[in-house]
């Protein structure tokens, strides 16, 4: 008897040490989802309309700059500022699409790197046109954050701001910044229209370089780094341990930081759920894809549900915040930290569960910060 027990025990030990665990990231799931149809919907119903909308707002920003400079007044400054805000909000709807030409030229770096650097901005203004906005060191001297500084923060009162930005050199710089946003965006937009759209849709396979894999990675990267971390986590001091009012998006205008976050976040949710840009239609996107995998494999969870449930909680926590995040983190940073936590809970589901279900490899890593 004892002999038998030993033998069984031994066998168990030997077997246990020989069993291979399945390799990570290799999905055994059946996948009959039509990726091409999804890519088509993304391109035609979300990405292109979002860029075209953004481009329209940039055009009116240019127009309002012209109006302002032909007749600088408190009224024309006000209109100038609102069209800046509208364009900035429209940017939040395209920022996650850093793919194709946008990725190649680094559109986000030239559009929305904050905090702006006022000293650098004035160095450029006073350089006698001797500056190069293509340089990475000039990221913080251009785009919406630089305009935020010039239009809202360059002096203590609105009248004084008009004096500051109405000098010939500053005017030229402001116009240059707005022109540049227009030029870069139309470059991206026309590339989509002329060639990239077909390339994007037809590259419908499943590999590290396929459109779905790349777009999902870009989407995730945006969510993690630019929404969760930059808009919420960094100002709230999640990484440094100290609140950082300087790192709030739109810090000079102040009152729009919540709106900017909300617009970015709702765009993320709409993309995930396949809501067309005009809000009128629903098509195949990640949510439908996850449900499809869940049903055809009879898995335990439909991750699209868990993600949406978590995002509802996050949306709720965002609605508790003040419009001005600088005030929010000074007065009650716990609410900001709560938002971060709720946004962060979705990262795990997206990055691990979703990626495994869709058999997509994460292609970015956390930089080690040096």
């Amino acid at each position: 008897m004892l002999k038998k027990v030993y033998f069984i025990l031994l066998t168990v030990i030997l077997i246990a040490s020989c069993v291979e665990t399945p390799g990570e990231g290799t999905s055994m799931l059946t996948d009959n989802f039509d990726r091409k149809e999804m890519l088509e919907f993304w391109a035609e119903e979300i990405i292109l309309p979002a860029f075209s909308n953004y481009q329209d707002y940039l055009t009116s920003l240019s127009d309002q700059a012209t109006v302002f400079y032909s007749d600088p007044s408190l009224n024309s400054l006000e209109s100038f500022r609102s069209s800046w805000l509208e364009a900035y909000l429209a940017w939040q709807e395209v920022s996650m699409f850093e793919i194709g030409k946008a990725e190649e030229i680094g559109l986000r770096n030239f559009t929305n790197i904050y905090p702006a650097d006022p000293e650098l901005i004035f160095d450029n203004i006073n350089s006698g046109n001797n500056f190069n906005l293509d340089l990475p060191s000039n990221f913080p001297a251009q785009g919406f954050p630089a305009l935020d500084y010039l239009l809202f923060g360059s002096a203590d009162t609105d009248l004084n701001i008009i004096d500051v930005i109405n000098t010939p050199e500053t005017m030229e710089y402001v116009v240059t910044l707005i022109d540049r946003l227009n030029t870069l965006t139309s470059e991206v937009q026309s590339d989509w229209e002329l060639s990239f759209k077909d390339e994007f849709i037809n590259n419908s396979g499943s590999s590290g370089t396929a459109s779905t894999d790349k777009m999902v990675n870009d989407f995730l990267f945006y969510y993690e780094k630019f929404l969760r971390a930059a808009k919420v986590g960094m100002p709230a001091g999640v990484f440094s341990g100290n609140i950082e009012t300087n790192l709030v998006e739109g810090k000079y205008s102040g009152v729009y930081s919540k709106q900017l976050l909300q617009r970015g976040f709702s765009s993320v949710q709409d993309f995930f759920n396949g809501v067309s840009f005009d809000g009128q239609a629903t098509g195949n996107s990640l949510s439908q894809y996850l449900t499809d995998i869940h049903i055809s494999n009879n898995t335990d969870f439909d991750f699209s549900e868990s993600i949406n449930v978590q995002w509802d909680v996050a949306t709720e926590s965002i609605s508790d915040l003040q419009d001005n995040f600088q005030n929010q983190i000074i007065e009650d940073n716990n609410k900001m930290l709560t938002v971060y936590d709720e946004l962060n809970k979705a990262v795990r589901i997206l990055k691990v569960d979703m990626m495994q279900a869709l058999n997509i490899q994460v292609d970015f890593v956390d930089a080690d910060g040096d």
Partner: protein
Amino acid sequence: MSKTYQFLLLSLILLLITSCEGPDTPINIENPVSYEFVRNGESTVSFGGQTDRISMGQELIEAMLNFETTESDLLEMYSNQTASGDDANPYSSAALNESTKSVKSKVAASEDFFSSNTVESAKIKADIESWIIAQVIEVFPNQNQLAAPGIAGQIADGSSARYVNGQGLEYNQAVNKSLIGALMVDQMLNNYLGTAVLDAADNIINNDEEMVEDGQAYTSMEHKWDEAFGYIFGGEGNDYSNPLTTLGGDSFLNKYLLRVEDDADFTGIASDIFEALKFGRAAIVAKDYDVRDAQADIIKDKVSEVIAIRAVYYLQQGKIALENNDFGAGFHDLSEGFGFIYSLRFLRDTNNNSAYFGEEEVSSFIDQLTNGNGFWDVDSATLDQMSEAIAAKFEFTVAQAAN
């Protein structure tokens, strides 16, 4: 009971017995909880020279990114003397300016590897010096240029600007990471932890009789061991008595120990190194030199592994970034990788009591990275081959090191 059963049963019993046996710890030496050693109520722990050199290295690598700095400023920070050999005061810290120590004098200067190999030692000192000079000559003038193949300048890594030479190399990273090998690792593994230094002159007799150095509380042997300790746990930002709580306190070996520790495949390595340093020091106090040397071997193995893992890590990270056409991020990874590869030369293979990588082997790696337009041209296959060649000498895989 058949023969087979008997055999299996015996194997099982043996398996159980061996797995129950504890580590080979002589009962008479206690491994203290913290790195605290006293004699007559006075601490015997001392590694001020190491702290100073780490701080000097820190100032040097920071100054390499300050575009106002001149070539002679940087060279003085490297050698802590003027070009004509006079006393220099290049540092922001007054204490460092008063110090007579320098970074350069201890680069590739270990007893075991370089005391009879001064030709290579001189070459390594000069390599690092040449990168310092090139930063001023090639990169500083192109501060406001976009980098391109063959052209030094700026390149975006995420939202930050990196400054590279015409081959995509950041000289500041090359210097920073090469010093980890050429200064910290070489001094630690091939100098202070070797018997040539620990047992030099009358060190054993003096330690046996607790003859302390003039005016000090420590014996020579104790001090040598502490100097090894100082290069990994003795930076300004470290709590040396419980250094696992302050990992990442400097920009050199300590920081990359933390990085490897943070990789789930290698968690525990920081504690292994600390325990061995502590236990080896306790063995010196207990006058048990076999135990001391066994600990020294553990430290040599583990510290060598840290450098090799980071070399492979950066090659693989750089490869992924370049495959995604993210040149800025890729160049940054390969710049760090360049320094870690340069550092491979100083790793110590305790099985053969020799270097893991010879001079030519490391040169060939560096050549492959800097061929033609360097990082602009290097392909994935080359980076993979190099990674495999490095990992093959150790017990980790490329995949384990890569993330």
